[in-house]
């Protein structure tokens, strides 16, 4: 009997394809919107996660200034110096690598190619802290770092776009007024989270950078990577103590530097994305409600139109329950079908938007299943009233209905 009911419902929907389609348009749009938002939200969350892990696990960033901020030194707060890095190296326990880090945009010239790129000053330990890998050549040696030698490691973009056809190792690159020898090429890292090519970069030893590029001895950030077993919160505490002592900050006074745990930042960002996704989904969900009302409306019209049919069915022996079930199944099938269509459109939409905004396309089975069940439930809930009305028709009057 149930298979017959399903078949009857399917035929009734097919008879009025256009109307059925318009009826479930709200459901289709609502489900598609929810799927797009949730899928892109999940993609962004994953993107943030991988972006952070690309930066290196267990990484703590030390920046001047009392405010929690990402990167960049505050003008008022004193910057770090090489001595600070040495002190941290001496005092901290549970650290795998420490790297001073400074950067600015500057002119890079290779032969006839001329481009403004990101110039970074750091040390070889950066490869541990930020997971940078050198595909060709090598990292800086300790003596190169100490003497401030004119050597550099270039990003993949510089090699590809400015040194096409050239052997990069041993070549000379001009950075600002400095000519330096290329000793290594970095592995490509791809687009950054918020735009920008991470591979359009030239890395110099920090001392070379300070003396020959910026002309001062400041260090914008100190990047610290905890050992695998290290307790990050304990490490943060150690760093804070060392730096407060070095800067003679009295107890109770605010620090003029910040210790930022990147996984913590990632966590906050992911939570924010989650809240945004939920909020936007809720708005899209309202259209599901509107879609449900559309289904109720059309089912009521349908019951009126088919009054005679209902009369015939009751006369030949259908029970009220069977008539009710027929209309309920029809409504559920309509909205579930709309849900399927919406899921398909939503996935197509998400898959085509994802590359455009530079996030991965993340297919989530649970979201799809939930969207489908929810849309079917909308049909049952909003189909209930019309179905009950159909079942309660008086067969005599229904048969007389014109």
């Amino acid at each position, binding site marked *: *009997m149930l298979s*017959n009911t399903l078949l009857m419902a399917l035929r009734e929907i097919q*008879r009025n394809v256009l109307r059925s389609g318009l009826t479930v348009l709200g459901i289709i749009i609502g489900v598609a919107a929810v799927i797009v938002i949730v899928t892109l939200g999940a993609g962004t969350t994953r993107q943030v996660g991988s972006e952070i892990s690309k930066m290196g696990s267990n990484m703590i960033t030390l920046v001047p200034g009392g405010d929690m901020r990402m990167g960049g030194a505050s003008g008022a707060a004193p910057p770090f110096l090489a001595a600070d890095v040495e002190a941290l190296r001496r005092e901290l326990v549970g650290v795998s690598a420490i790297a001073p880090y400074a950067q600015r945009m500057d002119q890079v010239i290779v032969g006839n190619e001329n481009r403004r790129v990101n110039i970074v000053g750091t040390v070889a330990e950066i490869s541990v802290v930020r997971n940078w890998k050198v595909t060709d050549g090598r990292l800086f040696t300790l003596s190169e770092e100490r003497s401030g030698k004119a050597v550099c490691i270039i990003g993949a973009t510089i090699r590809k776009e400015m040194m096409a056809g050239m052997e990069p190792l041993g070549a000379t690159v001009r950075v600002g007024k400095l000519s330096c020898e290329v000793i290594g090429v970095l592995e490509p890292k791809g687009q950054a989270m918020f735009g920008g090519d991470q591979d359009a970069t030239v890395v110099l030893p920090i001392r070379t950078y300070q003396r020959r590029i910026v002309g001062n001895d400041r260090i914008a950030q100190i990047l610290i990577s905890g050992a695998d077993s290290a307790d990050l919160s304990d490490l943060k505490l150690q760093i804070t103590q060392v730096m407060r002592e070095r800067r003679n900050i009295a107890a109770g006074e605010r620090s003029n530097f910040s210790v930022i745990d990147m996984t913590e930042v990632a966590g906050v960002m992911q939570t924010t994305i989650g809240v945004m996704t939920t909020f936007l989904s809720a708005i899209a969900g309202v259209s599901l409600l509107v879609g449900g009302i559309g289904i109720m409306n059309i089912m009521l019209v349908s019951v009126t139109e088919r009054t*005679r*049919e209902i*009369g*015939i*069915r*009751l*006369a*030949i*022996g*259908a*029970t*009220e*329950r*069977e008539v009710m079930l027929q209309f309920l199944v029809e409504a559920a099938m309509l909205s579930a079908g709309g849900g399927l269509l919406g899921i398909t459109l939503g996935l197509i939409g998400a898959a085509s938007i994802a590359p455009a905004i530079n996030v991965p396309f993340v297919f989530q089975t649970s979201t799809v299943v939930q969207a489908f069940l929810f849309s079917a439930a909308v049909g049952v809930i909003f189909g209930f009233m019309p179905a009950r009305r159909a079942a309660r028709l008086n*067969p*005599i009057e229904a*048969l007389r209905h014109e």
Partner: protein
Amino acid sequence: MSKQGSASALMAEQSPGPLVAFENVSKIYGKGDAEVRALNGVNLQINAGEFVAVMGPSGSGKSTAMNILGCLDKPTSGRYLFKGVDVGGLASDQLAMLRRHFLGFVFQGFNLLARTTALENLELPLIYQRIEKARRRAMALEALETVGLADRADHTPAELSGGQQQRVAIARAIVTKPSLLLADEPTGNLDSARSHEIMQLLTRLNRERGLTVVLVTHEDDIAAYAGRRLDFRDGRIVRETRNTGKPSHAQ
């Protein structure tokens, strides 16, 4: 399945009495000043195998009587016995079971499902009887053959003439092999030639299969096909005529 159970209990019963009986049946619509007494203490017995014509002007109570006979309505007072069972005490689901298994309806307006083939129209009551597909098909085709429309099985009502539609409707009413066929002005929408075809079909079903037929009509020559004629007026049966001779128009 208790509903099915009570239905089969009815089926098994070999009641010696009449197929259906009205015992002092009254039907009152409305209340107080607006009260309408559609049936007023009607007594009536119809035996299995009878062919009865019901006549009367509109408002005479004949439609009400048909609705009660068809278990679509219940008497306000008095008893309606179907195979000796008092229908007044049955719940609406049980009434549906009675209609499903023992009653066939033919209407003036044919009342076939639109955009549905003749065969599928015939299968509808069998679906409610939970008869499986292959057997359903066979029964539907057989009934279509009985009314001479086997070659129109795949036609929708819109593709059939009025006479053909009414024959499909009759086939749908008899496909479940009911005990009682109720025909409410089955020839009302048909021309004279088509009307007599339909009446000959009903007469044949009545004679060959022993199908009990109750027919409402306004026309004397249609009523002449029946073995007994009841005239209703003001909610009562005012005259009962037995037609002993052969109907004038038959054969």
